[in-house]
């Protein structure tokens, strides 16, 4: 190329637009591989960026077919030819894919192939611009893998997990949660609580969410009933604020555990406690008109309450005017226990029956007097058998020995 030594401004423009300057541009770029191919795909020109990215020097690669940059499987499938054909057809072809360096190492590339035509429209070759994206690709791959791992963990968890946004819409749910609601994950994501649950239930959940989002504090151990298509479940939920990277609250993350089993177990235990309590305070009819209730163990408010109710029911049931309440098995009597007993006696009287308190041990007698508890008005005896005698007296009955009837 000949250059004009003295340039006018017009010719300066000509100089800048000349092929030399263009070459300067191409030579100066090292981030991109800018390669020219002939119409058949052989390498015609090579820039420093191409050398850096693909590893070949100019002398090594010029004249070679550009398919050597592709992985063997791609070559087998005829990918390079297809790309050229696409470039011819559409003017350009853009792609991301694996390419091979001189040393055999593969890298992820972003490639644009443009068909170059002269003024007459005849194909003169191709311009191929390649950018290495391995770093980005690696990051994306990592994120994808992490996401998959996270999803696997989420789905494997028996805990029901969900993310909701500020409008009570499910952003993401895990398998357990979706299943509990009888839907697929895809069905639930994007829907609001109101789309899925009855209004009142959805409102309740919403209340908790609003609280969490406005206070920025987690709400833990929320125990509630959850109606599912399989029936009623008892669940325990923890709701925590869902924050973005800046720390703003953008929704709620929920962890819900099915505690139906636990609740059922609790109920069973409660039922058993009640049964034990009933067993330990039986009210037995020992004779027509006489019931006996031996109290064993200490009496707390709840136990006395239940005892009183049961005693009264039995008295009415059996139509018994006398109830022997035996406290031999009660270790200590404090003011409160005594008060409960007095209350029980008063209630029995209202029915039209009366209590005889039996089994009053010396220690109990002492305690009662020392506490200043007035049990006068209640018939008391130290033993159950003595109490039975009182009962017979009240019922106007008499025990007669057979041998005495001579």
């Amino acid at each position, binding site marked *: 190329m000949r250059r004009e030594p003295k340039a006018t401004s017009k010719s300066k423009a000509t100089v800048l637009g000349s092929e030399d300057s263009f070459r300067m541009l191409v030579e100066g770029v090292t981030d991109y591989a800018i390669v020219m191919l002939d119409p058949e795909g052989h390498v015609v020109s090579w820039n420093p960026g191409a050398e850096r990215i693909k590893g070949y020097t100019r002398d090594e690669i010029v004249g070679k077919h550009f398919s050597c940059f592709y992985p063997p499987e791609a070559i087998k499938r005829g990918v390079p030819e297809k790309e050229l054909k696409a470039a011819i057809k559409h003017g350009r072809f853009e792609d991301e894919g694996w390419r091979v360096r001189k040393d055999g190492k593969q890298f992820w590339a972003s490639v644009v192939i443009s068909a170059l035509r002269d003024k007459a429209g005849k194909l003169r070759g191709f311009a191929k611009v390649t950018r290495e994206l391995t770093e980005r690709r690696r990051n994306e791959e990592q994120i994808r893998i992490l996401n998959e791992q996270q999803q696997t963990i989420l789905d494997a968890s028996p805990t029901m997990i969900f993310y909701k946004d500020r409008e009570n819409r499910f952003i993401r749910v895990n398998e357990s949660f979706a299943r509990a609601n009888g839907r697929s994950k895809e069905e639930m994501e994007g829907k609001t609580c109101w789309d899925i649950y009855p209004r009142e239930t959805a409102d309740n959940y919403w209340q908790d969410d609003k609280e969490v989002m406005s206070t920025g504090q987690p709400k833990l151990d*929320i*125990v*509630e009933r959850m109606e599912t298509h399989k029936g009623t479940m*008892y669940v325990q939920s923890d709701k925590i604020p869902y924050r973005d990277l800046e720390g703003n609250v953008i929704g709620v993350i929920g962890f819900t555990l099915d505690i139906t089993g636990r609740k059922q177990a609790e*109920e069973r235990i*409660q039922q058993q406690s009640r049964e034990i309590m009933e067993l330990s305070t039986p009210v037995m009819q020992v004779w027509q008109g006489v019931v006996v209730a031996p109290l064993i163990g200490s009496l707390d408010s709840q136990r006395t309450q239940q005892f009183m*109710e049961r005693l009264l029911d039995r008295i009415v049931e059996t139509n018994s005017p006398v109830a022997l309440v035996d406290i031999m098995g009660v270790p200590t009597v404090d003011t409160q226990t005594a008060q409960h007993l007095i209350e029980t006696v008063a209630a029995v009287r209202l029915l039209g029956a009366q209590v005889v308190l039996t089994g009053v041990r010396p220690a109990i007698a002492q305690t009662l007097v020392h506490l200043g508890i007035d049990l006068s008005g209640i018939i008391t005896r130290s033993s159950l058998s003595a109490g039975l005698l009182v009962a017979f007296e009240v019922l106007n009955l008499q025990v007669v020995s057979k041998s005495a009837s001579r």
Partner: protein
Amino acid sequence: MNDLQQGEFPIESENDIVSARRLVRNAAVAAGFGLTDVTRIVTAASELTRNIYVHAKSGVMRWRFLKSESKVGLELTFEDSGLGIPNVAKAMEAGYSTGNGLGMGLPGAKRLTDEMTVHSEVGKGTTVVVRKWLTK
């Protein structure tokens, strides 16, 4: 607008006492209370409604189902614009079995229910709120 979950009932005449009892009975039964607890709640309501009628001549009773995590309950509110109670603490002290009737309202109702709050202002009126929880 009265459904079974909540409602209100004006107390204006002697007849309203028994009507209030019936309403409360229905509500308590619907809430799932057992017979003895129903009796307790209804009797407490009778006492507190009577208080309104006797001391203030008119007022209102409200009822409301309560839901809290794992238990349900019933809340009754008794409100009047009567003379008010000068010393609530003293009124609550009224002894066990001292009465032959009147004045058993507050302490009695307290014994029959789980929670009770009394707000009263002399010259303005009184509001009594009682709650009973169903344990199970």
